[in-house]
């Protein structure tokens, strides 16, 4: 009998930290009657036409492998979508790969570009997978902290400060998870100058592209000079309410997609056939549903931001995604204490900001991808929590 498995477990595997989200999930899941503002996915069910298209494809027997890069028909739709919607042309036959969510796209991107010890700048607060994925690919994640002073936007100066001779790439995510902050075209142009100067590659996570509320979304790859330096990640999870489908895509210059496709071919073969048929329908005929979902999120964002400010939690207005990131500094609690006590006392789940990196300490992530009645109730409970503990001094 083996008593100690640590001898068998890889060093990388050992060193990976468990996600802080996981820990909080376990606590929240063990309780009943919780209102959750802790979810990172749409509250809408995938529009029916998309579900129906997948059902039909199953009925018709589309149960085999597809091309490694995905059904050509789907890649053609993706290409048309990227071109029409964001003005970035990609060749469907050799510049686009259909992946298992943007998650696999990220993995492919890092594995394709990183050598042992290469540094990747990660703008924090950041989605929980970025750093571990860089580590798994042999790279070193280097955090670039942002602050609410300028709405959690990263500045060219902040980026430049962290660049060393080992820096290979930077990861950008706009609209952002967890802050919801959005980089404008002008912001991106400023960043592009640094990228060019230091000869970096950009991994641009555009999964929330469809959920930009106040400004037209700008794809990083559309910025002058950046097309050649961008690995663009996107997918169906958020904008089309298809998280469980695990479908995304990556688009990049051909020499990079060639490498990514080799890795994809050996690790994954291809994305599920019948689900790709659903994705084709999503891109063809879901414009109105996507617009309606977006309008609904926008309303809820307005409601939540203003109500949080009213009850005494400072919150900037995020331009996209479905998260707000209010400060809980005035309460004197750490973000973990705040989230845990709010959960135990009022049964409202939010995610402590520190799980998204050090600069997230002092904040909590609240998702407004939840029905209005639930949001109203959750905010009422948060107010009760603050009042009962006299946690916020009323101005």
């Amino acid at each position, binding site marked *: 009998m083996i008593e100690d498995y640590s001898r068998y477990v890889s060093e990388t595997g050992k060193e990976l930290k468990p*996600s802080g*989200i996981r820990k*909080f*999930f376990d606590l*929240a*899941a063990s309780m009943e009657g*919780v209102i*959750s503002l*802790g*979810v*990172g*996915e749409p*509250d809408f*069910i995938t529009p029916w036409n998309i579900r129906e298209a997948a059902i039909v494809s199953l009925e018709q027997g589309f149960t085999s492998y597809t091309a490694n890069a995905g059904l050509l028909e789907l890649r053609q739709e993706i290409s048309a979508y990227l071109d029409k919607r964001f003005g970035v042309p990609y060749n469907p036959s050799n510049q686009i790969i259909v992946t298992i969510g943007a998650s696999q796209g990220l993995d492919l991107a890092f594995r394709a570009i990183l050598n042992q010890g290469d540094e990747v700048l990660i703008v924090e607060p950041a*989605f*929980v*997978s970025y750093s571990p994925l860089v580590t798994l690919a042999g790279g070193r994640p280097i955090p670039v902290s942002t602050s609410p002073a300028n709405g959690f936007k990263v500045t060219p100066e902040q980026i430049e400060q962290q660049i060393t001779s080992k820096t290979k790439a930077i990861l950008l995510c706009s609209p952002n*998870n967890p802050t919801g902050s959005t980089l404008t075209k002008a912001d991106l142009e400023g960043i592009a100058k640094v990228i060019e100067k230091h000869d970096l590659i950009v991994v641009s996570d555009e999964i929330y592209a469809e959920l930009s509320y106040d400004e037209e979304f700008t794809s990083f790859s559309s910025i002058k000079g950046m097309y050649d330096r961008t690995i663009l990640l996107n997918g169906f999870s958020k904008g089309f309410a298809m998280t469980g489908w695990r479908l995304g895509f990556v688009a990049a210059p051909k020499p990079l997609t060639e490498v990514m496709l080799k890795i994809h071919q050996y690790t994954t073969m291809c994305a599920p056939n019948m689900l790709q048929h659903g994705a084709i329908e999503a891109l063809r005929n879901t414009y109105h549903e996507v617009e309606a979902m977006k*309008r609904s999120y926008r*309303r*809820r964002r*307005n*409601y939540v931001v*203003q*109500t949080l400010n009213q009850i005494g939690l400072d919150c900037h207005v995020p331009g996209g995604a479905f998260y707000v990131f209010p400060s809980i500094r005035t309460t004197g609690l750490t973000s973990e204490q705040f989230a845990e006590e709010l959960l135990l006392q009022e049964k409202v*789940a939010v*995610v402590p900001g520190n799980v998204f990196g050090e600069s997230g300490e002092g904040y909590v992530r609240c998702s407004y991808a939840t029905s*209005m009645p639930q949001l*109203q109730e959750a905010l009422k409970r948060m107010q009760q929590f603050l009042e009962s503990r006299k946690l916020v001094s009323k101005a």
Partner: protein
Amino acid sequence: MKLSSEEIEILRIMEENHKISVESIALMVMSSEESVRKTIKKLEDDKIIMSYPTLIDWSKVEGQENIIAMIDVKVTPKRGVGFDEVADRIARFPEVSSLYLMSGGYDLSITIEGKTMNQIATFVSEKLSTIENVISTTTHFMLKKYKHDGVIFSSGDEKDRRMVVSP
């Protein structure tokens, strides 16, 4: 009538739930309660907001189930007023819940609701078919409501199946 984007937004919110408070609407459109109240009043005055009906599934309430029939009616149009005059007459009967002029095999489509089969039969034979210009009627009884005004009736609710916390 051309409406502002804020007016349209308020209409959409109220279409989803007309019981929502003015305070909440104001927060959602980032405006003042005063201004939202004014907008709603204006939309009512302009008859863009027509009424605030409540969608009730009466079939679930014992003793209150209505019998609903849809009637296809052929009519001889009248010189000068076409179908409008006869349609206007029919629309005034309280039993009639909706009435449309149709293209195709017949002219008017009427939905009527009654408490009993007898009530509907009486309406058709004594009131509707005796109207001058009504040539023929075909009555279809509705057996079950699956979807009405965009709301799906019967299906088990598509409830929130997400985990409590996710990345």
